[in-house]
């Protein structure tokens, strides 16, 4: 397993100059960061030349403090039993990257979700505008600076009675003459 992993790292580093490997303690996992322009070519290379034929997942991470969005592609090789993480960073204010659904068709669904939930724009993505949200007018809801509680407060009615978030355990215990055990007291607000 170790040799296979080393071999994969060597091959990718030889072919892609900007691929920075992050040391991963797990034997069946390789982690790379690349520039966003390299993403289609590195994924094509992994799929066609190295047997990583299965796209496990595409996810997005919001690095609010650094002003960046990180898109992570996870591909899996059934032959080598190794998964490769390919990460790329996008500018948070203008997150544009290349569409990769010509490599794996199922990437289309992930990209639609990311477009809607994080506001990442994929150039050349052909898909209907709306996916999970309908009539959405606010900012992308999965970004960390989106305040769901404030949005819910503004958009929906709330039934009065839970805004103070009071712990009713004490009230009930007083009413029924019960004693709250010591271990439960530290969880009381």
């Amino acid at each position, binding site marked *: 397993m170790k040799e296979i992993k080393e071999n994969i790292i060597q091959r990718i580093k030889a072919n892609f100059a900007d691929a920075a490997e992050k040391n991963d303690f797990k034997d069946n996992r390789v982690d790379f960061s690349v520039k966003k322009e390299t993403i289609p070519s590195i994924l094509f290379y992994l799929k066609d030349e190295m047997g990583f034929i299965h796209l496990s997942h595409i996810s997005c991470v919001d690095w609010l403090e650094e002003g960046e969005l990180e898109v992570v592609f996870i591909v899996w090789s059934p032959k080598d039993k190794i998964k490769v993480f390919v990460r790329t960073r996008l500018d948070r204010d203008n997150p544009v990257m290349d569409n990769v659904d010509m490599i794996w068709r199922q990437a289309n669904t992930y990209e639609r979700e990311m477009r809607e939930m994080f506001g990442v724009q994929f150039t050349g993505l052909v898909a209907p505008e709306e996916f*999970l*949200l*309908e*009539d959405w*007018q*606010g900012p992308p*809801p999965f970004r960390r600076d*989106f305040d*769901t*509680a404030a*949005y*819910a407060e503004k*958009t*929906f*009615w*709330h*039934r009065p*009675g*839970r805004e103070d978030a009071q712990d009713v355990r004490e009230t009930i215990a007083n009413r029924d003459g019960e004693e709250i055990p010591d271990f439960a007291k530290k969880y009381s607000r």
Partner: protein
Amino acid sequence: MMNDKNSQKIVDIIQNWARKHSIWVLAYGTGCGAIEIPPTMTSRYDAERLGVRGAATPRQADVLLITGYLTVKTMKRVIRVYEQMQDPKYVIGFGSCTINGGMYYDSYNTIKVLDKYLPVDVYINGCMPRPEAVLSGFAQLQKRIAEGRANGAQQYKDNLEWYRANQKKIIPNWIMPEYNW
């Protein structure tokens, strides 16, 4: 004869008695709560002994169960379904999500108070309500029907503008038909 107040009362009593023993529930689940319906309907709890059965289409159903959280996207379909149902029709709010939002109280996409959007006859609390609680809710609905108090549909007709305004507040792009009963 129908104009006579006392005979109308007798007709109502017979009608309500018949209605309460024949509750057809629309097979439509909105949230996670729908998973409690199969055990309620099958042999273990056997809701059919109370006259509660499943119906396939909105036009044949009497009861609309809102089982759990209701997203804005589902809300459109639910309104559409509710307005297609024929009288008598009742709504049961099922689970704490329909009452005060439950664990989705700060979610950006689920409604918190169901009775602002649809007239609710009976609420069943719990997360999830067990089949016993569901049966108790149905028993409560039957009691209200027998007493002639389950008149949510009439309330909806009388206050349609109010309900419609609330619904349009969360559904800005209204593409559904406007009914005018």
